[in-house]
């Protein structure tokens, strides 16, 4: 252990392992941040970037591994500990009090006070304006957060870190919500900060930005550490292949395709965002025909979720038109869409998929309990419901403690997902919308679910798959549409494309005009 080596790094995270029930989010990851460098952390969704940063910021505690600051081991049990060590973080979704002014937000929790707890705002204002001028962080200290641009909100977050004299700055996907001009400004600010001796960790999956601003880049994939490179020594394509890895051989058997009629036709759909003032989905048009699996690929947060909400009726559209099986369903309530022939395997199975405290059998008939088969004169026909549940359990191999009467909450994630899939497919829909249907599941369950989806396609149904998993996109789909910042930026053929090419589209480095 050479001492001069220890002082080279501002922060070292050595052999960090963090487990969540059923998943290893960080598996023996090592990250070393030099003084005064901008260090990018690159990885797909679920690669473990956010978990690793949450460990550093004290939101989670790692089971194994040590964190060192300037070569000395430290314990970080809460954000306050991190703050005391000079570690600050700009979260992807800002942690600001909307109805407070910029100034009040910056000093909140660290207010300079005089006798009787009276605020010394003038002092704070001077410190903030000095910092603002020094680093080119233009803010209006008296404007309320709710009235200012996202860019200024972010500058407020940065000033919040600088006000607390933080010298290790974590930026969690800082460009996701910014306009190109604001991104340009942010890059300049980050370079300024690094030049002044701050050490910056920059989480991103946008390759161009990493190449532009970072000195070094560490890559994570599926919770594992892949490597660290100098950005000057690599190309975007090399980084992309480090991020996505080689295509694991995990092939799904598919019959020859027989294209049918257009089942779903989305025209110029625009959906508002809940997080920022821009629209999350911008003028998206697409068609899905019977007998094909169309996959919307992209990195999380590029509008896929909002697109599905708009399509399935969970959120109203700003504009656009949706036609399902020849009927205009743009303003149709969710139940009518379901009866007409739309099935939805939702992204969040706990929030939108199951009533967790209901029994398995009640969840199985959740969308059909009112049909004559299950209800007579307002009373549930329990025997029929039981029979239906038993049939589903048998056919879809749903494993649970007590069969139909098991509380859904007590089942494993894979079996919960199987129950949802059984329910949605059994409705014999014209269109199946499956959003990240295999997220967090083990290999066996993934294979089973892929087979079910392909069986729907082979039966002539239309399938719209939304996935963040590169392998899944390439293996299962017949046609890939890449979504980036709310728009479809590319259409790819899974037979001819490569993960690297797809990665370039997903990271916004490449785009083409796509007609529906």
């Amino acid at each position, binding site marked *: 252990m050479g001492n001069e080596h220890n002082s080279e790094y501002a922060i070292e995270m050595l052999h960090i392992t963090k487990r969540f029930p059923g998943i290893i989010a960080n598996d023996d990851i090592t990250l070393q941040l030099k003084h005064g460098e901008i260090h990018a952390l690159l990885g797909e969704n679920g690669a473990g970037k956010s978990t690793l940063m949450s460990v550093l910021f004290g939101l989670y505690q790692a089971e194994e591994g040590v964190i060192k600051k300037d070569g000395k081991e430290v314990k970080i049990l809460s*954000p306050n500990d991190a*703050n005391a060590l000079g570690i600050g973080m700009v979260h992807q979704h800002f*942690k600001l009090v909307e*109805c*407070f002014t910029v100034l*009040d937000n910056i000093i*909140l*929790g660290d207010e300079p006070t005089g006798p009787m707890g009276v*605020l010394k705002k003038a002092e704070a204002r001077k410190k903030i304006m000095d910092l603002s001028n020094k680093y080119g962080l233009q803010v209006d200290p008296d404007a309320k957060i709710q009235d200012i641009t996202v860019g200024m909100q972010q500058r407020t977050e940065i000033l919040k870190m600088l006000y607390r004299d933080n010298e290790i700055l974590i930026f969690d996907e800082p460009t996701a919500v910014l306009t190109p001009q604001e991104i340009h400004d942010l890059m300049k600010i980050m370079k300024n900060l690094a030049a002044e001796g701050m050490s910056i960790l920059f989480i991103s999956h946008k390759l161009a930005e990493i190449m532009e601003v970072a000195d070094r880049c560490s890559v994570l994939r599926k919770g594992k550490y892949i490597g660290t490179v100098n950005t000057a020594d690599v190309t975007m394509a090399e980084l992309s292949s480090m991020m996505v890895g080689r295509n694991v051989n995990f092939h799904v058997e598919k019959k020859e395709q027989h294209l049918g009629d257009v089942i779903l036709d989305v025209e110029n759909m625009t959906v508002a965002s809940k997080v920022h003032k821009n629209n999350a989905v911008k003028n998206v048009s697409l068609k899905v025909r019977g007998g094909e699996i169309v996959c919307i690929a992209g990195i999380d947060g590029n509008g896929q979720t909002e697109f599905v909400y708009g399509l399935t009726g969970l959120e109203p559209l700003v504009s656009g038109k949706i036609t399902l099986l020849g009927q205009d369903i743009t303003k149709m309530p969710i139940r009518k869409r379901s009866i007409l022939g739309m099935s939805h395997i939702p992204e969040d199975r706990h929030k939108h998929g199951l009533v967790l405290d209901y029994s398995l059998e009640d969840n199985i008939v959740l969308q059909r309990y009112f049909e004559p088969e299950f209800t007579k004169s307002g009373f549930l026909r329990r025997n029929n419901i039981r029979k239906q549940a038993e049939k589903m359990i048998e056919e879809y191999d749903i494993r649970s403690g007590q069969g139909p009467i098991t509380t859904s909450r007590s089942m494993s994630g894979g079996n919960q997902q199987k129950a949802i899939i059984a329910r949605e497919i059994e409705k014999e829909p014209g269109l199946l919308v499956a959003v990240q249907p295999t997220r967090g599941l083990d290999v066996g369950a993934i294979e089973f679910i892929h087979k079910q989806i392909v069986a729907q396609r082979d039966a002539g149904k239309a399938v719209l798959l939304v996935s963040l998993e590169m392998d899944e996109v390439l293996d299962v789909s017949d046609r890939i549409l890449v979504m980036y910042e709310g728009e479809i930026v590319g259409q790819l053929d899974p037979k001819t494309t490569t993960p690297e090419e797809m990665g370039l589209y997903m990271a916004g480095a490449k785009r083409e005009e796509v007609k529906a």
Partner: protein
Amino acid sequence: MEQKNKSFKTFFIQNIYILSAVLVIVVFFLINNSFLSLYSIQNMTTELAPLLPMACGIAFVLYAGSIDLSIGAVASAVCVITGLNVGEKGNIMILYMLLFGVMIGLINGLLVSKGKLPSFIVTLCAQSIYRAIAIILSNPHGGGSKNIPLKQRVVVNWATNKVLGLPILFWIAVLILIICIVIERKTAIGKSIFAIGANEKAARMAGVNVTLTKLCAFILCSVGAAIGGIMYTYKLKSSVPTIGDNLYMMAISSVALGGTLFSGGKGSALRTLVGVLTVTAISSGMNMAGVNPLWKNVVYGIVLIAAVAINSEKGGRDLIIK
């Protein structure tokens, strides 16, 4: 264009509280011209004095995103204890009662912040307890209101003496209002109270001590209620065990009429003052118009719902009592 319309609408809604106050005063003035006579105004300032500290107090709990339903009962208990003892013990009772208020706020606040119980339940139970205490203490004295004996009244008479034409009680209420404004605008604890109401997570991440902040909000609230109770004793020169039964409705209505959000994070004592003026005007105006007092609570109920409906943000985040 659309933006402009929207901001005008926002401006209108944000300032509708002033309009409602003016409207109420104009209507009662038209019904009865003596509504704005000097005597009537003097009378209203005496009416308003105890309500203002209570409303300003509970406003802090509302800013923090919680609620306190016990303030009326606390005022009753304080009014009874003060009324029965002030004649013998003297004005030192004020200090004791303020400490009593701190203690009640401490208990409520600890149960909510440390015990993680919903403030609605905690303070509903507190309401039941302090209301019962007020009645139990009154029982040996006939169970109802009891006047402070005539020869001991010298102790309390100062409070209704007039300075600059208005009773001292009113000036004390104004002083308390100013203190509340200072706490809101000039202190770290005031800012923290708003912050936890608007976005508790962000406040926690910024390093705000959420437990301590909530505790402070509840203490300020109960002390405000205690001051209200003391003032009623001094104003009525008697102990009235049922005095608080309507007060929490009046206080909450006042704060709501001032445009304070029930989801927390927004509001000000000055706005609460306008709300208190409106509620007092309604109360006095109805008296002067000869309306049966039993109808007052019907009116407060409707006013509260209307005020909350107008002011609430329709984002779905509203009216979540933490």
